[in-house]
């Protein structure tokens, strides 16, 4: 993992730097103040990590807000791919707690709540499914690597704060190769109120990126989304139909103290389908100036993930680029794309000013310089994700590079966008 190796290879803070910091601080403090010693740092607010198994019996599951919220985000998901859960189904899914509540489990073995809380880390892991164990292990490793805890302390922290009680119950889950959307509600009698989710979210033993978690307009009901393409391994092939789906969220429950709770969900027989087309590797010849390779083109109902690499050459290319303002001091010539779908409808990557940019189709994009590789030959790459306000049923995608002037602070000046049709191309999405 990147973070493991970064920690291992990064140099220690030199003594000179430490002295510089201390001296700089001392310089800033006034001479008249009373003498201060540097206090031992206050203990960080306790992060209470509890692993709470879903699966207590609850009343009939309410219809969630998942579909409504997703449509508000500009997405339309195929209904047949949304998996819906009811209370009894959830109880059956969770390993070892079929039809039982934590209270029932306590009464069976005679242990008290206090004794339950003192389970060892291995006992906790033993109560989880295989993929939930993998998720939990990543949580532990993150404490070790990011919070600099020893392995023993990280496990002890989890054990000390382990609570087995009803928490969130899933209502609906949708997952394709790019995104996982879910809705959930608080279990009856639960007095924990999630506020937000930490970024690190775990799906089948893979550290993914939480995008969104919020309470709906119905108290106690939540919706969220997880970006599966931003995981550290960038492998979307980690959930197969018929296998287990295990999701672990780290949820904030107190914005002042930063207390969190771990929410784990497992479906032993995941029956949701995935509809992701992998069209990576497609090469499109430009009309005059070389070709474009789709280094990545993943087409899901929720997103279109794209990375393009232009390899440009041809008579008149230098003059064409210079005509649009390319120079050694302006190598970031191409700033965005405009798009068209197969019906000819036009879209703007970042949206339009007159619509308050609510019509944007791309939230994340990144591109480098146009690199001159030799006389008359250039290379440029760009990547982005189309995830809203675009007709995902379109058969094709037309990409039209654009250039836009920036001000002295580097911000784009509205109204200065100019398309570069010489470099536009069309790619099939089906």
């Amino acid at each position: 993992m990147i973070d493991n190796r970064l920690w291992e290879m990064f140099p220690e803070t030199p003594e000179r730097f430490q002295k510089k910091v201390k001296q700089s601080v001392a310089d800033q403090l006034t001479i008249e103040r009373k003498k201060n010693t540097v206090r031992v740092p206050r203990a960080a607010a306790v992060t209470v990590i509890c692993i709470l198994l879903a699966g207590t019996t609850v009343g009939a599951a309410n219809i969630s807000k998942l579909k409504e919220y997703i449509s508000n985000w500009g997405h339309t998901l195929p209904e047949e791919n949304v998996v819906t859960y009811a209370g009894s189904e959830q109880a059956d899914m969770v390993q070892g707690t079929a039809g039982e509540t934590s209270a029932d489990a306590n009464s069976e073995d005679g242990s008290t709540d206090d004794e339950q809380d003192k389970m060892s880390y291995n006992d906790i892991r033993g109560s989880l499914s295989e993929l939930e164990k993998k998720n939990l292990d990543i949580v532990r490793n993150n404490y070790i690597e990011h919070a600099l805890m020893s392995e023993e302390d990280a496990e002890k922290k989890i054990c000390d704060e382990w609570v087995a009680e009803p928490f969130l119950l899933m209502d609906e889950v949708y997952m394709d190769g790019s995104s996982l959307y879910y809705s959930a509600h608080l279990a009856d009698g639960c007095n924990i109120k999630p506020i937000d989710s930490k970024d690190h979210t775990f799906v089948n033993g893979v550290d993914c990126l939480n995008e969104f978690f919020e309470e709906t307009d119905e108290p106690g009901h939540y919706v969220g989304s997880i970006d599966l393409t931003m995981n550290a391994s960038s492998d979307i092939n980690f959930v197969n139909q018929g296998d287990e789906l295990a999701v672990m969220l780290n949820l904030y429950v107190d914005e002042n103290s930063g207390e969190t709770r771990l929410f784990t969900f497992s479906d032993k027989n995941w029956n949701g389908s995935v509809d992701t087309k992998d069209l990576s590797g497609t090469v499109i010849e430009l009309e005059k100036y070389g070709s474009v390779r789709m280094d990545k083109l993943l087409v899901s109902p929720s997103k279109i993930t794209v990375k393009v690499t232009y390899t440009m050459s041809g008579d008149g290319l230098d003059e064409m680029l210079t005509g649009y303002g390319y120079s050694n001091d302006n190598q970031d010539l191409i700033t965005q794309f405009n798009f068209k779908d197969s019906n000819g409808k036009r879209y703007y990557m970042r949206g339009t000013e007159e619509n308050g940019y609510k019509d944007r189709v791309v939230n994340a994009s990144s591109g480098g310089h146009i690199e001159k590789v030799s006389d008359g030959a250039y290379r440029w790459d760009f990547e982005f994700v189309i995830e809203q306000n675009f007709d995902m049923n379109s058969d094709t995608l037309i990409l039209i590079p654009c250039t836009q002037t920036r001000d002295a602070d580097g911000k784009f000046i509205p109204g200065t966008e100019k398309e570069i049709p010489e470099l536009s191309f069309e790619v099939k999405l089906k």
Partner: protein
Amino acid sequence: MDKEEFAEVVINATDSLYRVSFAILGNEADCEDAVGEAIATAFSKLYTLRQEKYAKTWLTKILIRECYRTLKLRKRTVSAGDDMDNIIEFSDRSERPDYSELYEALGKLSKEQRTVIVLYYLEGYSVREVAKITGVTQGTVKSRLSRARNHLKYMLNDEEIITSDGLEQEKINMQGRVHVV
């Protein structure tokens, strides 16, 4: 927050300030200059810090701006054609026998990518916090992270960092769940 309390925050953040500045500048002398300037700026603007719990994040943001300023200044003093913003060679290599490929590859990322990689993976900030620190949107942070990981992968050809997205390996085999075209 008073100056004494902020002084404690700064001292406690020493290691973090070093890691962030060194990742951007790659030169200890420049790091010392940048952190000195950043501390002075932070104290002078302490009255603008609204929430004490964000003091370290705020200080990191000031430091990053100072580092970028240093890079700009450095760029003006080198010959045309050099791109010191994008590539740094970590100095004092001979003093670091544990110098690694990943370390060198990190220096070849753009300063923006180095910054997000260090803030997210090394310092453990969230995407939201990284966005606040660097002054860009969360979408841009995610994109830079993704791009940086891919660049590291290409430079290192390292499957441990990220599974290769070479053509052969990206043919998804999901047993009928994904339509491979």
